[in-house]
């Protein structure tokens, strides 16, 4: 009952609307909650992130506005709304204006194919995963629009870095999802979640609990971090090198929109990670299935957000060559091995054999690739030579 509360509420509300406008109202009732919930989640995340990072650095974090600083996002929103909107004279005004809007629109679209609970999906597309990645690729365009139209060297550098990084990491991101698509035999997100429902004994049938799924999940999350320009892959906006990267010339609410778009992208890609590897809205243990499905989805989402914050608080920013080496020399071969391993898993039947073969592929590849990465980056004490 509670599980389907929102679905039933929507049908109940639709019952009171005349037949002619019913489709329009139905669309509205699906979209408006998405447009409300995720920006609210963004506000919660900013304060969680700042407090979490503060605690990691043995500080308090924001604690002035409201009770324990929980109203900080409101203060931030007011501040960015009241700030002056500055557009450089030599900027391309139209594109400069459009870039944050494109980013925001693109950031909202992928939510259409994320199942956030049982029967809770905006558009059940047959090629949902494909739609997700197709839309995700447009965010690169908006980033480059912002960088190019600002007419600033730093923002152009940032945009170029962003595009290079996003295209490089799109490859392992897609390959690790292909493993899941192969195992599930479907591109539909609803279908993929349905395949992961049910249990092996007390363990859920999530793909993350298989050897290839675990490796795929790690690769997916690393690529997702790079894809959303989050630390340690935040080179496009590296504050210490290129000030703020592609949004250096954005102020006030346009800057806030970029921020919002970036976090929405992070939530969306986390949602896809949950759908592909963590069983979507399904419960982790058989005796917990009475908890509403949407609670599980958002609990998992919060868990991944905390993971993102934790990683941000731990790792320093990568260098550009390290970033590229990691993408092409480690992530890509590893993702290909994951695909092969998932294939072995698919065709070796239900036995111990498929566990061993699948795990063997992953481990051998990991050890060999790790040795390759390590041997290239021998860190030695720098020898200084001075003129005699």
């Amino acid at each position, binding site marked *: 009952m509670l599980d389907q509360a929102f679905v039933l509420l929507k049908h109940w509300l639709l019952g009171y609307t005349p037949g002619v406008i019913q489709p329009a109202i139905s669309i509205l009732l699906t979209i408006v909650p998405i447009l409300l919930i995720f920006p609210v989640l963004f506000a919660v995340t900013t304060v969680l992130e700042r407090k979490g990072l503060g*605690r990691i650095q043995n500080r308090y974090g924001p604690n002035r506005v409201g009770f324990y600083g929980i109203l900080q996002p409101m203060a931030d929103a007011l501040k960015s709304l009241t700030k002056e909107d500055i557009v450089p004279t030599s900027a391309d005004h139209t594109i400069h204006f459009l870039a944050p809007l494109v980013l925001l629109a693109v950031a909202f679209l992928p939510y259409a194919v994320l199942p956030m609970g049982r029967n809770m999906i905006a558009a059940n597309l047959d090629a949902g995963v494909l739609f997700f990645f197709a839309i995700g690729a447009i965010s690169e365009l908006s980033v480059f629009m912002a960088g190019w139209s600002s007419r600033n060297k730093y923002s152009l550098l940032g945009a170029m870095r962003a595009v290079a990084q996003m295209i490089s990491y799109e490859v392992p991101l897609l390959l690790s999802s292909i493993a899941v698509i192969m195992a599930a035999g479907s591109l539909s997100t609803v279908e993929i979640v349905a395949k992961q429902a049910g249990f092996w004994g007390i363990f859920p049938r999530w793909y993350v609990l298989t050897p290839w799924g675990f490796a795929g999940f790690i690769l997916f999350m690393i690529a997702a971090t790079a894809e959303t320009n989050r630390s340690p892959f935040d080179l496009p906006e590296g504050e210490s090198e290129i000030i703020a990267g592609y949004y250096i010339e954005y102020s006030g609410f346009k800057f806030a929109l970029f921020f919002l778009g970036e976090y929405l992208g992070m939530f969306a890609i986390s949602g896809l990670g949950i759908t592909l590897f963590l069983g979507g809205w399904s419960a982790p243990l058989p005796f917990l299935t009475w908890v509403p499905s949407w609670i599980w989805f958002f609990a998992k989402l919060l868990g991944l957000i905390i993971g993102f914050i934790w990683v941000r608080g*731990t790792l320093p920013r990568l260098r550009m060559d390290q970033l590229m080496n990691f993408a092409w020399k480690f992530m890509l071969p590893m993702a290909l091995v994951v695909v092969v391993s998932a294939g072995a898993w698919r065709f070796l039947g239900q036995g111990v054999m498929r566990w061993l073969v699948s795990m063997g592929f992953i481990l051998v590849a990991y050890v060999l690739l790790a040795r390759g*990465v390590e041997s290239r980056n021998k860190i030695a004490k720098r020898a200084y030579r001075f003129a005699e």
Partner: protein
Amino acid sequence: MRAEEMLGGGIVKGLAETARNFLGSFVDKERLVTVQYPEERLPVAEAARNFPFLIYDGTDPEQGLRCVACQICEKECPPRCITIEKSKDKKPDFVGKQQFYPAVFDIDVSVCMSCQICVEVCPFDAIRMDNNFELSTTDRFGGLLWTKEKLAMPNEHYLAIHPTEAAEVEARRAEERAQAEAKKQPAVTE
């Protein structure tokens, strides 16, 4: 090969370290070194200085002001933030000698660079550095131009904020006053 030597081992170690810091900050109050400023504050160091003030002796800021409007500080001030206008009449100083006094003594807080040169050149120990750092104001013109009335502070304030330095000044002034008294004394007895 040890576990932490594997690729990714260092990341796990780093994640453990940040987790330890995160959880530790909730348990161990010693870790949180931040001073919550407006409510809590650290004691100000004795040598701390921020902005000059004028010293007066006794209770009346107008009568007891040590400044004799010699205008040395005005001339020495590198950013030229001091404005002094000399008085027409004279009044007795601490040894009883007739001296001028400043009719106007203004310092522009927004211009002052806290260099303490005015303090070093003052032959009358009339100007000293205060340690008050909360000088913000909502009026950026009048509020930042401090007049004689606002600058004048009793000698007790100086003794309180810079005790060591003030004690030396007090001793020297006492000596000067004693010498002046000694000079005056024979004249009376003759």
